[in-house]
């Protein structure tokens, strides 16, 4: 699956537009990590557990978007955008969306 955040796939031609696909997830860290992050606030520095949390969330959301794209027969997702929001204390939503397309090599394209 080709994932890109520009509107074309270099070296390929888009032959079919299949509409928007999206993936999202809302995740939380367990209470122990929240407490540690609270301590970290006192000293400053990177809140590694929250970095982890958002990285995992982004990966999961992307996987879900890819799953949607393959379910409707796409082989690439273009113009991909990420967005985030806070829905509950200590939980973050990661939302990713893009346009599912079918691409072919430029040489064989029409």
């Amino acid at each position, binding site marked *: 699956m080709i994932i890109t955040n520009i509107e074309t796939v270099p070296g390929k031609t*888009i*032959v*079919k*537009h*299949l*509409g928007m*696909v*999206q*993936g*999202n*997830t809302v995740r939380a860290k367990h209470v122990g990590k929240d407490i540690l992050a609270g301590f970290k606030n006192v000293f400053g520095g990177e809140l590694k557990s929250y970095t982890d949390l958002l990285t995992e969330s982004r990966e999961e959301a992307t996987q*879900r978007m890819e*799953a*949607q794209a393959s*379910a*409707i*027969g796409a082989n690439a997702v273009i113009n991909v955008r990420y967005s985030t929001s806070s829905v509950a204390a200590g939980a973050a939503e990661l939302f990713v969306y893009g346009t599912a397309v079918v691409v072919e090599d430029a040489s064989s394209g029409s």
Partner: protein
Amino acid sequence: MEYQNPQVPEGINVSKQHPLKEFAWMLATVGAITLAVVLLLSLLAGWLVKFVPFSVEQQLASQVIQQLPPSASGPNHLQVETYLQQLADKLVANAPLPEGMTITVHYVDDSTVNAAATLGGHVLMYRGLLEKLPNENALAMVMAHEIAHVRHRDPMMSLGRGVVVTTALAALSGFSDTQLSGWVVGFSGNLTLLKFSRDQEHAADENGLLAVHATYGHTGGSEQLFEVLAQAHGDREAWATFLATHPLGDERIAALVEQAQRNGWQQSGPLTPLPEFVRQL
């Protein structure tokens, strides 16, 4: 470029796991952690409480004494209580308690077939049990058993554990301060119902038999106590409370016989009768 807009299948962005399954898993995990924490706290409290001086325990016990049923309900109440106190003193003289520990016996005019040790060295002896005991040796065994609980600080341990467990559970379940203190006070309101573990009961049996042997020179009559308790089985109410905490009668008798054999104690001898005023209860 061809344009299509097919329907995306549902369910990709939704977890496939049934929410109830996840809930059950989380509940089990939280439950297990809570149980482990509470168990650990209660063990810690039980261990720490042994370092609390007996004088502090006696101060706590002032509450207990207030809860006791009013005494002198019968004509010979005082006579019985004095006799029981003398018996306890005799047992303590033959198997001394640690410095500063005292035993106060209370005779309770109630049909419950039971005896209990509580905070501050207060021992409750119920009429129900006294009526059923055949001789002084059996009575001495139950008395020595309760004295052994005091010696081992079992009531204090039970109280410490109880307070810690109720406090921890209340804190975890998120009760407010007022409800919490109400609960703890409610608990200490039942001090006469302190429960001991089977190990504590066995230890008290063992120590009790030691005192009985030191007092009478033989252990005869002790097993009759457990026979009486076993017979009280028919009396469902009295037995239910006893069965819950105490090891089974046969098992206890076997342990006592084994202990006597191990120490080479005489297992029978002249039995001391109960005084007339106790037999006529």
